[in-house]
């Protein structure tokens, strides 16, 4: 040391600086080149050891520190440390890149053909007849009606006699019945449920009910006849129930089922249990009342029968006709469904071809 002149010393100092700086640059280039061809974490680990390990060249540079004057040491140290940090960042960046590539490769292996079919998790559906029943029930519930059900095996008395259809009545012709015994039969309409309800109410309180259910007639099955079918009958009895109330109610039904633009019309008809009695037509939804094949050019489609309850029926069910009056109506559910959806054969409802049933999902 004593042999070095001052000039010598500064020369030496400059050489170290320059040398180390250059070496770092070279190393950095080498590192970048090495990283560029790295494919996995193991290789990366080797490179990390080579460039940043204890035996790495850069780690040797610090040994020169002692040869430097005190005031120079911080700058030198900083230079080397910064280089180490850069090297480390480069390696870590590469590590992330490799990780991502590895994950990408893994995910690629999981590629699915998104156009393939999903399994059938299809929901089932309520039978169309019950869908319509629910729809009509809900409409009437909203208007304050109760739903009443009753037995399908009925007595002649409740099915006929209390509805002003005594034995030998001409209208019994209209509904040839399936009998079980002399006095029991399969109900031909759900009207006996109305009678049962009135009897149960004891002639005292107002009645506002609808009665859905299965009914039976002695008909051979064909495209338009079925020995079993479905009815919804309604009954309102109170002191001031009018035929206009019936008209407003049935207009609500028609519009609920066939759309808000529908109109209805009443035509006189005959039922033993009501008087006056009417048949109710709704303007054809297909042609808007102009006349088409569906409505047989009339512009109207018959949807239900209705009327003011016959005094005899009220009386036989315990209601005083001097105080109470009311209206009743009956809807054929199959007929409604056939009209609404253009179903051509009533037997479809009972065949349960799933290609038929599954079309109705509402």
């Amino acid at each position, binding site marked *: 040391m004593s042999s070095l002149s001052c000039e010598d010393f500064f020369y030496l100092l400059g050489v170290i600086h320059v040398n180390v700086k250059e070496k770092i640059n070279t190393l950095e280039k080498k590192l970048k080149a090495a990283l560029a061809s790295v494919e996995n974490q193991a290789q990366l680990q080797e490179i990390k050891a080579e460039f940043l390990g204890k035996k790495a060249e850069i780690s040797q540079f610090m040994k020169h520190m002692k040869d430097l004057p005190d005031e120079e040491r911080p700058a030198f140290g900083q230079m080397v440390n910064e280089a180490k940090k850069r090297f480390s960042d480069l390696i870590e960046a590469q590590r992330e890149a490799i990780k991502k590539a590895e994950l990408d490769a893994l995910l690629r292996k999981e590629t699915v053909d998104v156009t393939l079919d999903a399994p059938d998790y299809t929901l089932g559906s309520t039978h169309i007849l019950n869908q319509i029943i629910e729809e009509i029930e809900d409409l009437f519930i909203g208007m304050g009606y109760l739903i009443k059900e009753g037995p*399908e095996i009925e007595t002649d008395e409740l099915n006929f006699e209390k509805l002003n259809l005594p034995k030998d009545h001409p209208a019994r012709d209209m509904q040839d019945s399936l009998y079980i015994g002399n006095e029991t039969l399969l109900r031909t309409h759900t009207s006996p449920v109305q009678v049962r309800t009135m009897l149960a109410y004891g002639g005292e309180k107002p009645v506002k009910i609808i009665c859905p259910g299965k009914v039976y007639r002695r008909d051979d099955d064909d495209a338009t006849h079925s020995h079993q079918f479905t009815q919804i009958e309604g009954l309102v009895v109170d002191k001031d129930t009018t035929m206009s109330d019936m008209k407003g109610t049935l207009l609500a039904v028609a519009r609920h089922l066939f759309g808000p633009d529908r109109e209805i019309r009443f035509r*006189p008809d005959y039922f033993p249990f009501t008087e006056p009695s009417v048949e109710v037509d709704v303007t054809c939804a297909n042609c808007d009342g102009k006349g088409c094949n569906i409505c047989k050019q009339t512009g109207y489609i018959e949807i239900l029968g209705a009327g003011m309850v016959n005094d005899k029926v009220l009386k036989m069910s315990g209601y005083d006709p001097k105080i109470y009056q009311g209206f009743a109506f009956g809807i054929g559910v199959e007929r409604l469904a056939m009209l609404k959806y253009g179903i051509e054969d009533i037997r479809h409802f009972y065949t349960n071809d799933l290609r038929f049933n599954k079309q109705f999902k509402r």
Partner: protein
Amino acid sequence: MKVSLNWLSDYIDLSDITPEQLKHRFTIQSQEVEALYPLTTAKNLVVGHVVTLEAHPDADKLKICSVDVGRETLQIICGAPNVAADQRVVVALPGAVLPGGFKIENTKIRGVESSGMICSLKELGIDEKYHAETGIHVLPETAKVGEDAITVLGFDDIILDVDTKPDRPELLSMAGFAYDIAALFDLGINIDAADYQGDDIENPFKIKTETEACPSYYGAYMENITIKPSPLWLKARLIAAGIRPINNVVDITNYVMLETGQPLHAFDYDKLGSNEIVVRLAEAGERFITLDEKKRTLNKDDILITNGESPVALGGVMGGLDSEVTTDTKRILLESATFKPRNIRRTSQRLDLKSESSTRFEKGLNTEGTLNALKRACELLIKYAGAKVSKDIASFDHHKHEKRTIELSLSKLNGVLGSALDLAETKDILRRLRFPYTVDKEIFTDEAPARRPDLITYQDLIEEIGRIYDYNNLPDTLPKTVSRGGLTPYQLFKRQIRHALNGLGLNETITYSLIDKQHVHDLSRIKDIDPVTLANPLSEIHSTLIVTPLNGLIEVAAYNVNRRMDHVHVYELSKRYTVDKETELLGMLMKGPYHNHYWQENAPTNFFTIKGIIEALRERFMLPKFSYENVTLDNYHPHQTAVIKIDGTILGHVGKLHPTYAADHDLEDVFIAELDLEAFYAYAAKDNTYETVLRFPSVSRDIALVLDENITAGTILESIHEYSTTILKDAHVFDVYQGEHIETGKKSLAIRLRFEDKTGTLKTKTIDEMVKNILEALKKEHDAVLR
């Protein structure tokens, strides 16, 4: 009834009303018009005179006719065997279009020119049931050559076909229609009472009744009858009404019946065999041959017209063959009577014998019109059959002939209709209806006309006023009754069951309640039910009410599988019908993969698939645990069928269809279940319950047991629960193994136990002790050892 507008025009002036208007108004305010159609659509037809006739040179059966049609003489080829010279015939001129779109043109037939066609009635569109003619129609000599043939025939008519309801018997007569249409359109009406001069001949008849079923009977005697065809206009009107013309006498009785609604019957006096008419009820088993040549066996409901000894007519229904009017008839007894509707209806129904007469009598007639109808017929028979009629009419009439009055207040009228009719409007409607009335303040006292026997109560009168007012003029209001609507909890439950099953992928079906008696117990669990069988079934296959919804579901599966739909997962809410009780049941059927996974692997559908559906419902409706017990049922798999119980109550059953039974229906691997809905509902929770959610996770322990293969998992789990405290949350079998390392006759069950303590964290020691207890108990009770 088929209503001729020509005929109607005799009574009311229809000149300002189109047939379409008539149809519309009648439909809206009276009865449904089912059809409106012309009697014939044939046009451009004239009366022709066959001047000469020669044989066709090239065809044996054809004739060359020279026909004078007024303006000109046409050469027409005719093939009818009855064509002859000097006939008046119906000629379709070239350019005419006959019914069915058949166009008449100038043409050559076998080389000979033909300009037009000589027509038969059939070619004019008159159905063969209204005439017996086979060849061309020959007009009477009085027909004027060149005139419109359709007019001459009286076929220029339009028919209104009306469906007459039981409460409007007056609409079984032309007069009834005239009154109703006059009311609808506010028209004048012109119906004359019958008027004729009788002859000074004696009526030899004595008439009496032995039954109340015939309250009145009028009999006119006449002689000098000439039986011949009726005039064209009369024939045309009968054809328009759908009745076949026979001869003048029969036609006139039918004509008067159509006009007045009162059926009449003509007896050949010379075949009656006595001068006495006695009406009585038939003896049971008595026999009688009716006009239609059928031998009828009678009973006590049937009314017989007798000659004092033997029957001559089945009163109100049909005449007898022996006393029928024929071409030889010279003298007749003409009957106009009334009969009790009940008897006529029973007779007609029992004998399956409906006639124009029975149709009218069974609906109840105007009892005041009996004599007038008879007189009207006499009038026509004098005119068209040359009859000499005795002035004296033999009769009895036990009708009371009282006035029927109906009281109705304006406020009641408006109170029922919801209308706001005032006195003047109401009076005007009654005037149009021609109902005589008096009015005091606002109370009408209406005298129901005899022609309207259906009017009895104030409701009948409201109906009449309402329809003339037109119901469609009523306002649209809703009932003023305020009430709370809604489903009962059980009704809501049934909807929820449907929605839950739909969510589980099952489709609802509705099948017939009536099936073949032979199969009613095929799939039932309860065999000692007497099925309900119809007394009058339409067929054997719909003769008996079901006792389980499963028969229908099997049919549905077979139908669909047969059409290549292999995934059949269906349910039905139906009933078990017994005479005194109808029990609501849920039936379910599963066949084929539950969810089709297509290119991915399908889980097999087995017993546990359908059990899973049942358990899903149990869980959804929050029922306590079910127990499943093996059971043997006819037509079910002997080792894959169970009854479902709760607290010892049977809720239903579930199982696999026996492969043999399935094969009989072209099915295999079908799983079915039946649940008693009402019992199920009884155990369903009626509301939610809340428990605090624990902050700590549960702790689980797995145990593997080796035990006898015949011990069910259910038995083991039951024991586990029995020997645990409430800290055992649940226990599930997660593996069942038999085979290597397990002794023959044994099986291994791996069970996961899950523990939870509401009071705090579970101590390992507590769990260890409980598992130890459980294992000891299982060893002791079931000889189950830890593997």
